[in-house]
């Protein structure tokens, strides 16, 4: 590709044609503040903090994130004029911003706070009217606080284009603008799949998860409660970031120690039920193949995806595996198998999960997720961020924690379960087991590289005995939509499809540490596959604790009891519910 030469603050850089001035500055190692810009997305040009001076231009300062760099261009990013203009932009933003940093969930990890500090803002120069505050706490997963919103529209970009759910958009204009669901409805009155990708996109504290921290402290402080915790595969490769470790740090055993320090009675692993999922789902898949059941079979472990298909493709619900997600399988076993084994009453067990996900909170609250006397199978769901926060509150020195193992038996798991945390992992884990079950041979190379990696849609054909299994994997709902459209048009001849709601899979889930971007996703993904390599057992059906579970309790995969406890059903949901009145328009 042709290159162009640009001078930035006197530094010459050669960059590909089509780059923006911001790209050029970055190539020169020069920092330009940005708020609405997101790497890999088209420029939004909404915030204007990235202003620079272009020599010989029309004189106006330009937004570097969207201004095309040209050959011979001379740019200044550090003049007094630029500095003052950026400062004024941020000061104006702050004048309509509820600045209670200490009480804000994003303090010390806030892009606005960071930029205000870099620009040396020390006072509120423009005090004036504040827009009315809209607090939307209706969703079981996501909280919206308009008083923190700087209208950067990053959440809109993600919700509309990455997830193609289309919940959030700018409503009204000027001072009245709010980022909200259609007609300023609350999230529960709109179509929102609770994925939390908007939370990851938000530079400030305007979007965050509905906290379960208080209820978990309460349970831990209650001497009559036996409080157990499960940790999802993707948490162990991310939680270190909350304590300043680089992305991709493998801290599984420190995490276990940290959770013990804050007072959980037992620290278990969702990976245990991820292995169980493989046996249940693999058996279901083989059954469908044999009995001409509905194909392609779609995986069902990602609750944001479940919400999405219930809203947008209800016709395809019969394709969805009936398996509950590993979180919910764990919850169901916690209050039955585990309760019996320990001789604890199910109502005295408080079951907590640590998830990379905001949709898991909604999932745990679904009314069908109760196997014992109306008790929730999972009582509280903490995001990775919340779990780290509880450790902080408890004074845990995470980085210097010793390594500690999970408790048994619900903490025993294989490498096949760890890779559930990455897009393609469920498929790979299923193939490892299905191959051996069908052929009776030992799989020499357990790595299915074709389904690994961050690409949105992956495909593979795998020979399993005399079956040529055609599989596909998608992560991010825009990619899921592509595959579902193909199925609807009758153009897909896949047997088995894995869908994860969040780009990259759970490792990029809406409950993960911020920032989560492609670089971070990649590092977490490498860590997940390294965890898998490092485990002695890498196939779910070889998990000894799972074998015992079937012998002692469930019988065999897809048995009646397994169906009662580990499988579920789905309900089509109405799109664009119009019975909810739009915002009040005053009429006299």
């Amino acid at each position, binding site marked *: 590709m042709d290159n162009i030469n640009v001078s930035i603050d006197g530094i010459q850089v050669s960059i590909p044609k089509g780059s923006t001035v911001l790209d050029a500055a970055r190539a020169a190692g020069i920092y330009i503040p940005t708020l609405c810009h997101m790497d890999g997305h088209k420029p939004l040009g909404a915030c204007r903090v990235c202003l620079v001076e272009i020599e010989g231009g029309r004189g106006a300062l330009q937004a570097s994130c969207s201004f095309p760099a040209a050959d011979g261009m001379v740019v200044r990013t550090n003049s007094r004029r630029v500095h003052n203009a950026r400062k004024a932009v941020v000061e104006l933003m702050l004048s309509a911003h509820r600045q209670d940093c200490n009480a804000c969930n994003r303090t010390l990890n806030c892009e606005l706070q960071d930029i205000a500090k870099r620009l040396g803002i020390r006072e509120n120069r423009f005090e004036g009217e504040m827009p009315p505050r809209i607090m939307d706490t209706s969703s079981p997963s996501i909280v919206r606080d308009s008083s923190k919103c700087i209208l950067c529209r990053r959440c809109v970009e993600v919700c509309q284009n990455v997830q193609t*759910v289309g919940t959030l958009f700018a*409503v009204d*204009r000027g001072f009245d603008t709010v980022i909200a669901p259609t007609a300023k409805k609350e999230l529960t009155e709109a179509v929102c799949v609770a994925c939390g990708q908007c939370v990851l996109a938000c530079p400030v504290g305007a979007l965050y998860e509905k906290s379960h921290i208080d209820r978990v402290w309460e349970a831990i402080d209650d001497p009559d409660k036996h409080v157990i915790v499960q940790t999802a595969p993707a948490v162990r490769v991310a939680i270190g970031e909350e304590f300043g470790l680089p992305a991709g740090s493998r801290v599984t055993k420190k995490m276990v120690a940290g959770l013990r320090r804050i007072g959980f009675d037992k620290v278990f692993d969702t990976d245990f039920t991820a292995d169980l999922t493989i046996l249940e789902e693999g058996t279901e898949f083989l059954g469908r193949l044999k009995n001409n059941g509905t194909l392609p079979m779609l995986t069902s472990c990602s609750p944001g995806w479940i919400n999405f298909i219930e809203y947008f493709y209800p016709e395809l619900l019969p394709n969805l595996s009936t398996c509950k997600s590993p979180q919910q399988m764990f919850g169901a076993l916690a209050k039955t198998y585990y309760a019996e084994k320990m001789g604890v009453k199910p109502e005295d067990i408080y079951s907590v999960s640590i998830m990379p996900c905001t949709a898991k909170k909604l999932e745990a609250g679904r009314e069908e997720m109760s196997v014992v006397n109306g008790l929730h199978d999972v009582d509280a769901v903490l995001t990775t961020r919340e779990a780290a926060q509880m450790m902080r509150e408890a004074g845990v020195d995470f980085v210097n924690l010793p390594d500690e193992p999970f408790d048994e038996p619900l903490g025993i798991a294989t490498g096949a379960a760890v890779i559930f945390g990455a897009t393609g992992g469920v498929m790979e884990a299923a193939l490892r087991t299905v191959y051996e079950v069908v052929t009776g041979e030992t799989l020499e190379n357990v790595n299915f590289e074709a389904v690994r990696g961050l690409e949105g849609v992956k495909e593979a054909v795998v020979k399993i005995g005399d079956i040529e299994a055609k599989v596909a994997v998608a992560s991010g709902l825009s990619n899921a939509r592509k595959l579902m459209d193909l199925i609807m048009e009758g153009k897909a001849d896949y047997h088995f499809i894995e869908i994860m709601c969040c780009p990259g899979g759970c490792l990029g889930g809406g409950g993960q540490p911020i920032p989560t971007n492609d670089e971070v996703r990649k590092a977490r993904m490498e860590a997940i596959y390294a965890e898998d390599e490092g485990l002695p057992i890498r196939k779910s059906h070889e998990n000894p604790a799972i074998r015992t579970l079937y012998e002692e309790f469930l019988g065999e995969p897809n048995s009646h009891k397994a169906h009662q406890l580990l499988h579920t059903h789905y309900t089509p949901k109405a799109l664009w519910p*119009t019975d909810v009145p*739009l915002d009040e328009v005053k*009429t*006299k």
Partner: protein
Amino acid sequence: MKSCNSDCCVPCEADIVAIVDKCGRTECNLIPILHELQRSFGYISDEAMETVAAELGITVSQVHGTATFYTLLYTRPQGKNIIKICDSPPCHLQGSKAIQAAITKALGIEPGETTLDGNFTFEVVSCMGLCGVAPAIMVNDDVYGNLTAEAIPEILDKYAACSCCCGEGC
């Protein structure tokens, strides 16, 4: 779906689809489509926005967000006559606040409201390009400039609903 052929003013899905077809079935025609809907039905209803979104393959929030961005597009039924007052700096400096008060006094409604009989909707808008004759208002497509508060009752009288017995607002 088929147009219902009745005289009701609620747009049928078929009417909306016809408008989409007329303007062009692509996202970039969204604004012409919204204009056309408003011309035909007086405002853009929730149902119309949903149909347009489905027809164009975009999200309802996008259609609604676009419609609410433009002050000249209405998402609620409006009065028969629409009074717009500019409150941009030129009109403001020339006393638009007094004009606004006079309208409120004459009709008993604040900006953003509609009279009970549905005859007038009153709203404050940004510059209408009438700075030369500030302060200015528009009633429907008619322009009134160089206004004083005293001139308001007479202007509004021209649009008053008839008070005869037919009840039709003739």
